[in-house]
């Protein structure tokens, strides 16, 4: 908690995470995480299961409050869930959840413009038109607006999730495993849509992925996470072969490589 609040003013980064720690009970799920991303750039977060990727993302969007450290978005400290302007900030961050988390009880268009309808910033008629525009952007037909999420296939649900995430035209787009459970063709399609959105709207994108190929080809920056810590981060172009090999081992669950950072069992090292 020692980082001065003014630091982000001097920092060129658009999103800036400083010494972020988060624990559940006694378990540290994030430890001293640092992340800096300039406006309009894209970043992939990669790492094995239980590395803390999703928790980091939920901290960024404000679902979890930080135990220590800070998250700055355009200079505003958004690291606490009780921050006074939190409900306004939600407009600036859009998030796609791992399992989409679409609202079953609502129609597709009501899902996409849920915030606008509930806050009354749009009439229902305008909201539906806006939703149909967004559906077109993610490659879905107008007719799907009146369906419910359960009428849709997995790939279609994912696209509705993306449409909901960008419905307020956020400056930051967070994607938790946007291609999980999709076949390679659909994965590519979703990644292309995301790339298009980022390019057209100048959106800053952070995306969790398990696919090194996608991370290397489609994202400018890369952050490797392991056991709640940042293992490596930098430009995608700068990954050297040692890191790549370690990372591959990490993703494959091998007991070599970066595991040597630790001295004993996982619990002994990380959670004691």
């Amino acid at each position, binding site marked *: 908690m020692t980082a001065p609040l003014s630091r982000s003013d001097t920092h060129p980064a658009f999103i800036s995470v400083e010494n972020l720690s988060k624990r559940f009970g006694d378990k540290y799920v994030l430890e001293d995480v640092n992340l800096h991303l300039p406006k309009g750039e894209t970043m992939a977060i990669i790492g094995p299961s239980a590395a803390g990727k999703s928790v980091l993302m939920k901290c960024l969007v404000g*679902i979890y409050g930080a135990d220590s450290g800070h998250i700055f978005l355009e200079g505003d400290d958004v690291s606490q869930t009780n921050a006074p302007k939190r409900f306004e900030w*939600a407009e600036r*961050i859009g*998030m796609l959840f791992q399992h989409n988390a679409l609202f079953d*009880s609502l129609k597709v268009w009501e899902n996409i413009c849920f915030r606008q309808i*509930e806050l009354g910033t749009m009439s229902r008629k305008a909201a539906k038109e806006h939703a149909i525009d967004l559906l077109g952007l993610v490659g879905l037909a107008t007719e799907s607006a009146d369906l419910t999420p359960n009428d849709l296939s997995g790939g279609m649900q994912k696209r509705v999730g993306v449409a909901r995430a960008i419905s307020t035209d956020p400056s930051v787009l967070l994607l938790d495993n946007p291609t999980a459970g999709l076949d390679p063709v659909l994965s590519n399609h979703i990644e292309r849509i995301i790339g298009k959105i980022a390019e057209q709207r100048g959106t800053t994108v952070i995306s969790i992925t398990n696919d090194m190929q996608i991370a290397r080809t489609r994202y400018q920056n890369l952050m490797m996470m392991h056991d709640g810590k940042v293992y490596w981060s930098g430009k995608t172009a700068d990954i050297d072969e040692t890191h790549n090999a370690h990372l591959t081992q990490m993703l494959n669950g091998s007991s070599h490589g970066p595991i040597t950072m630790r001295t004993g069992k996982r619990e002994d090292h990380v959670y004691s």
Partner: protein
Amino acid sequence: MSKPQNVPGNVRSKGLVDYLNDENVRAVLYQIVAIGLIILAGWYLVSNTLYNLEQQNISTGYGFLDLEASFEISETMIDYSAKSDYATALLVGLLNTVKVSFLGIVLCTIIGIIFGIARLSSNWIVRKLATVYVETFRNIPVLLQLFFWYALIPGAFPHPRDALEPLPGVLLTSRGMYLPVPMADTAFTMMGIAAVIACVVIYFVKKWAKKRQDATGQPFPMFLAGLGIFVGLVLLAYLAGGAPTDMSMPELKGFNIRGGYNISPEFMAVLIGLTVYTSTYVAEVVRSGIQAVPNGQWEAADSLGIRRTVALRKVILPQSMRVAIPPLTNQYLNLTKNSSLAVAVGYPDLVSVSNTTMNQTGQAIEAISIFMSIYLGLSLLTSLFMNWFNKKMALVER
């Protein structure tokens, strides 16, 4: 065992043991034995009953229903006097049962939802109070609760002479609550008919509106239109009936209160007892329903900057009600059946009237068969309605 053994020609060449080991033969044999036992038990019961009836010189049949009941019932929703027949008396009892059950179901649902949500509140006091309420009233037998409320109400309120008047025209006494009601008038019958007609009209307008929206995408303000049709038609009937404004006000005459509508202490005790008891179960059903909704739904609403209260109403509750409907049906059935305990505090429900009928006529079998089939019918109707509702709300998975 490769060939079917139930062909008669095959049997003679096999031993009896082989025959009994055949699965097909066994399946049929077991069923014959089971059906035989049921028939035997039934025959025993019927013949035993008939023998006993004969011994006691009781003639069977439902003819007694047309006889004069010659007993008073303290609370009736229809015209009834001691001169009415037993069939009318039983109908009075049935209506009283339906009245208390229906009101109980509506109230326990409302109270149960409130306490179910309160048990999950982030506010410590609210959460603990709800827990105490649920755990207390859920774990005391409902019959004792009825006694408790019945002892409390006449004791807590004053004699009619010193009646409390919390609202103008509303009197609270040890003989129950008195409310002012409009004087009976044909206009009210007409209003009732108008309300039914309005519902039919709304149904067809809604059908048309949906058809049009499906075809052209034009939405129709169904809620406003429906409200307009209903209020308009009922109001029209009221005005056509001469707009009666006479009210029957409860007033002290002598030692008792006359006029107005009386809610008896017995009815209040039964209604409060059943409502409170069942609402604790409804609260638990609602709580489990809310907890069955994946946490991701809360998080998604949160990430969109939606407050928890709004998320609960718009996202979580619609989904949890879906899970809650089948166990909710159980509670509604329980409440209806538990209303038969009303006899314990003297509320003239179906069982109470049937008991009197039985005592006076000696037609125990007939009276019991009547109220048992009525309860069965009520429960099946409730189930049918809830199954329909469940189907309507259920998620269609593809």
